[in-house]
């Protein structure tokens, strides 16, 4: 019971963080048809910017400034890179973001070195929020939840309740019509790309110190975010939300479970031949593979994803 409650809380915290990444990716994809391979690189940039700013003026200014900086970088990338690559088609755009991820990682190597930097949780947020059974739940996790949920509510309100949100929604499906009505669609694209990358940056700011800020963090999260987008259904924000929480929970639960595959099958009443390498694997060892297995299963049985509307 205790295990379930704590893992669930941790899983939801992680899932919400993942959704901040996947929501930006989904918005960018459904609007521009671009799968931004460098999305997790912006997450990494957010963490590093926040580290740098917090070492100068403290955590709180960084929380605000770092995502804005990342968003500005993202907008610049769209304006001066992607828009040019767009002329050569989707493959060129995909390759551009792929190359960009490569370059961002190398620039991070160049500036901040190859080892993890000491980006810490601020002292005000270091402590126990509440104790459930015998396990304490840190304040910082609660803070992460607060920020993510607040961000999501703001994003939802922006998209559905404001004029610019309505224009963005219209531009998602009928860009030509929106342009004919006199709106500057390329600028909206730049805005959405900047906004999406800023969200990723914010996730980096609050995730970088909860986990670890190192040059490999983009690659580690990047492929998981892609799995989420596929599992949830390409271009579906709701699907991305469900899939993020699902993957977040799967990862936290599986890391904490030390029973082996043999035990799992024993629960179902099947006994496996002992001694084979597969049967001896524990769920914890399987943890890194589970999201990908889930993705393959979804692709075979429900190719459009959990809540995806379109087929490709």
């Amino acid at each position, binding site marked *: 019971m205790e295990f379930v409650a704590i893992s669930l809380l941790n899983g939801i915290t992680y899932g919400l963080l993942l959704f901040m990444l996947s929501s930006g990716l989904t918005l960018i994809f459904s609007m521009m*048809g671009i*799968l931004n391979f460098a999305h997790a690189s912006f997450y990494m940039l957010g963490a590093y910017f926040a580290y740098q700013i917090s070492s100068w003026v403290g955590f709180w200014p960084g929380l605000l400034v770092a995502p804005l900086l990342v968003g500005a970088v993202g907008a610049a990338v769209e304006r001066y*890179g992607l828009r*040019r*690559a767009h002329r*050569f088609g*989707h*493959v*060129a755009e*995909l*390759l*551009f973001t*792929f*190359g*960009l991820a*490569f*370059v961002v990682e*190398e*620039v991070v*190597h*160049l*500036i*901040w*070195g190859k080892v993890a930097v000491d980006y810490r949780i601020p002292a005000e947020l270091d402590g126990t929020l509440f104790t459930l059974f015998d396990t304490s739940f840190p304040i910082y996790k609660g803070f992460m939840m607060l920020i993510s949920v607040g961000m999501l509510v703001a994003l939802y309100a922006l998209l559905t309740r404001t004029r610019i949100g309505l224009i963005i929604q219209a531009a998602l499906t009928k860009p030509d019509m929106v342009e004919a009505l006199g709106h500057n669609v390329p600028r909206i694209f730049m805005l959405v790309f900047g906004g999406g990358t800023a969200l990723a940056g914010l996730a980096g700011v609050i995730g970088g110190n909860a986990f670890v800020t190192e040059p490999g963090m983009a*690659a580690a999260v990047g*492929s998981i975010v*892609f*799995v989420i*987008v*596929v599992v949830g259904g*390409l271009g579906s924000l709701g699907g991305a939300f469900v899939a993020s929480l699902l993957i977040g929970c799967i990862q936290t639960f599986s890391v904490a479970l030390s029973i082996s595959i043999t035990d799992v099958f024993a629960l179902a009443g099947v006994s496996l031949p002992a001694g084979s*390498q597969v049967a001896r*694997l524990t769920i914890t*060892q*399987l943890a*890194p*593979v589970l999201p*990908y*297995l889930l*993705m*393959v299963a979804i*692709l*075979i049985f429900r*190719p459009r994803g959990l809540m995806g509307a379109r*087929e*490709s």
Partner: protein
Amino acid sequence: MSSRLVTRSRLLLWGGCLALALALPLVFKSGFLISLLCQMGIMVVFSLSYNMLLGQTGLLSFGHAVYYGLGAFATMHTLNAIGKDGGPLVVALLPAVGACAGLAGGVLLGYVTTRKAGTTFAMITLGIGELVAACSLMFPGVFGGEGGVSGNRVIGKESFLGFTWGPQVEMYGLIVLWAFVCTVAMFALTQTPLGRMANAVRDNPERAEFVGYDTERVRLLMVILSGMFAGAAGGLTALNYEIVTAETLNAHTSGVVLLMTFVGGIGFFYGPIIGAILITVMQIVIGGMTHAWLLYFGLFFLFMVLKAPGGIASLIAVQRNLWNAGLFGRMLPHYLAMALPVLILLAGLVGLVELTYALLAGEGVGAGDTATKVLGMQLKLGSPAPWVTALAVTGTGLILTRWIGNRAGAAWNAALATLHGDKA
């Protein structure tokens, strides 16, 4: 294009290439260069197999290293299983085992990946690639864990026609032969009905379906065949290095082959060959000179995506067209005029990157005040002099490139207009 597959000029060209490749060790005798040539040969096969997907079928894959790695591991395990019973002839045929493993992998994974084309295919291959890479670390018995699996390619007492494959030069000969056979086979495939249908599926899947072809099936066949050739390349790697690590099938390897193929040019059969040779040289030569080579490489790739999406092969093709139209002479002075400012710009940028790298990488050791060696020069990183120089050189290069570039660009557009005008 000639309708016959085997023409006299083609035979001459292919034979010439084979003879040239086999003769190279006579000129490049040092061990370093021979190893470099071996790596090139392997990468040529690997990137050509990749272009069967990207260039021919229009499938952007981020997990091609899976087949390469499977081929490498299968070959290495077979080599170790044969042990003393085999001989050099068996070893020479081992890359075929790798090819079979790649083919089997293609059958298995292709079924999942080829259901969709385009962006979905790209993402699924990425996921499958990560899945296999993660699995490889879970089964140390098969994939050797962190240390990898190693073996010895010299087995048996007798030699085969005098070859034992022990010396690197003999291995090079073997690689050239395999690479030649694979390249011919892949070229022949482009001329078959399947190869043509792959192009049709790439260009217009709807019409291909209307004509009565199953696009999913065409994609699947191409993935399987390309997996087979990638597996053969993997088998050659296993024999060449006598060690296979899990890195051969991870995302990094998949990324490198994508970069090679794209930089070389996906629109031409010979494009990936150029890319494989160029990038391998860059990797080993520039990689030996500076730690920041991956950054240069990434920037070069972004530049190619934005400025020359057809790769180097397409640039060559345009020059040939200009030459044939008698316009090349008109462009040549502009190329020469461009060379100097571009060199200045590059020198400035490289200087800036290397200075930053030296300053930040040496953070622990006395932070910048001491003289550090940058690009072979003793420089004081704490003083402004090297920074100002680098910035000034970059600025000069930038201004000159823009200024001369504008004129060259105008001449280029005029030449292209004439070229296309002549055609029309």
